[in-house]
């Protein structure tokens, strides 16, 4: 009798445990797992760069370096490119905007502006993946360098535009840039400061995106 009761109790306990583990798996349930993995790996990446960044010394821009016309493109297909376009409007500059600009898009542009920030929705909207985006940007910046364009890298999305996906696009943009503008919240770990130091380019950090127009204006002759 005791054995029977024990078995019944164990069976009931197992049923309760199994039901508790049967959370609904529809909707967004697959996202959290990938999110957890991606953020964990990005944290590891950030950790590796922060020590070098801590000792990095970076100066702001001393004099204007850029000229119009401007070609503005995204690096990572986030809508931050639209934000940067709006920031230009605030200083009465109207860049040619092409989210998927290629070497052929350069035309008579004298400055290439890279709006950095990864977006899975944006990549999906463009019908490309991160590797295709990286390949496009690599060819574009190489062509811009060959043609003597000034390249400005802008990271204006703050912490929201950090993590595994966005971080993939930061280094390729900074490597070929002549100048960088960064919203401070996105560089708490010093990743971009470290890159600017290693590439020996000037970089200005602002507290808020609304501080960008003044800095941006000062970059143009």
């Amino acid at each position, binding site marked *: 009798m005791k054995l029977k009761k024990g078995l019944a109790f164990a069976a009931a306990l197992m049923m309760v445990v199994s039901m508790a583990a049967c959370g609904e798996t*529809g909707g967004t349930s697959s996202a959290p797992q990938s999110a957890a993995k991606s*953020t964990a790996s990005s944290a590891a990446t950030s950790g590796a760069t922060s020590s070098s960044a801590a000792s990095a010394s970076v100066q702001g821009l001393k004099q204007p370096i850029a000229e119009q016309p401007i070609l503005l493109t995204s690096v990572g297909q986030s*809508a931050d490119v639209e934000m940067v376009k709006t920031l230009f409007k605030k200083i009465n500059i109207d860049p040619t905007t092409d989210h998927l600009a290629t070497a052929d898009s350069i035309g008579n542009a004298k400055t290439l502006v890279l709006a950095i920030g990864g977006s899975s929705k944006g990549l999906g909207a463009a019908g490309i993946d991160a590797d295709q985006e990286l390949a496009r940007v690599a060819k574009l910046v190489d062509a811009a360098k060959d043609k003597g364009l000034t390249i400005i890298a802008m990271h204006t999305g703050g912490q*929201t535009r950090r993590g595994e996906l966005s971080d993939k696009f930061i280094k390729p943009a900074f490597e070929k840039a002549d100048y960088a503008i960064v919203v401070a919240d996105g560089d708490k770990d010093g990743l971009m400061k470290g890159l600017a130091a290693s590439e020996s380019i000037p970089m200005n950090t602002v507290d808020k995106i609304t501080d960008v127009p003044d800095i941006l204006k000062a970059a143009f002759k």
Partner: protein
Amino acid sequence: MGKKNVISATICLVAALTIATVTGKNFMDVKAPDTLHPSANVTETKMLSDYFGDLKGTNSDTPIYVFKGSKPGGSMLILGGTHPNEPAGYLAAVAFLENVKVDQGTVYVIPRACNSGFTNNDAQEASPQYLHFTNKNGQERQFRYGSRAANPVDQWPDPDVYIHAGSGQQLSGSETRNLNRCYPGRPDGNLMEKTAYAIVQLIKNEGVDLTFDLHESSPEYPVNDATVAHEKCMDFAAEGMLELQMEGINMSLEPSPTNLHGLTHRELGDYTNTYPILMEAPNASQGRLRGATNEEMALTGKDKFYVSAAKLGFVYVPYDENGHPIEERVGRHLQGIIEYTKAFSSIHSDKPVSFENVPGYEEMFTDTDPSQLGGPHFGSFLN
């Protein structure tokens, strides 16, 4: 049959009938719609079935509150309760309609877009059934916390695979009850497709220029503290976003994917002339990493497991012991509506919409005594 057996059987029968009566009453009670008290400036109350008669008498029929300004202008639609387990989406629409005074143009508010989803809770999620507040007059107000999708009683069975009618996109079968996978809908479809169709008819018939769809998402979901906008909205969305940043609201702007179908920010932009905007705020009570799920969690957003997850870098929004109270989440939505409407009206100056008396982020959240967050302060905006 022995006397003991008769007594045991009677006790079991009485217990079963008692449980059936109590749970049966509860099952029926949750179908009763919440009582809403629109501001004195409401000019008309319509029903969704006015735009598609097939919804009349179904659990998908739902009120539409109309606010006409004294000056002619554009028109705007606010969809709350697309997902009834995302309370800030529903309650932001409620706070809007209970306070607003429209000066120019016309505003339509549907606080319970997926009305069917308010009549049940998601199985095995342990969600609270109701959220309670004390209003500005000291009276108790009660609002349903529902399910992400329509009540299976209203739309059943789910197919193994849900095929979106317009695109052929395939999703899991349960998504056939998700209103925000059914746009633009169809008149001969299932209940959610008919509901989506009715909303599209409203937009077309009334010439709605700007549409907001208010949501929440779990903190571990990458699209959080975000605005998702159709590509044709990007000019004013970027303007509005800058203003939100000025207000101290950290929000990202995301483009609507062209290859993800059935959602407002994609289909309403493609199939109608409206400019659709969807906003997300963080809600722990629908997340996968949460602890005990109850009304307090839904209102305060406090959860120690999300605090730990944030320390480990597993979430996409900042998360600490202060949580994300309902005032913050509703305030984000309301300030978003305010700023995007201003930016839209500035760029599309031929169809301006303006309104006043809607509490913004500061009034709802940042200027508030922290002890009043998590429900009490929100209640002070209710009639």
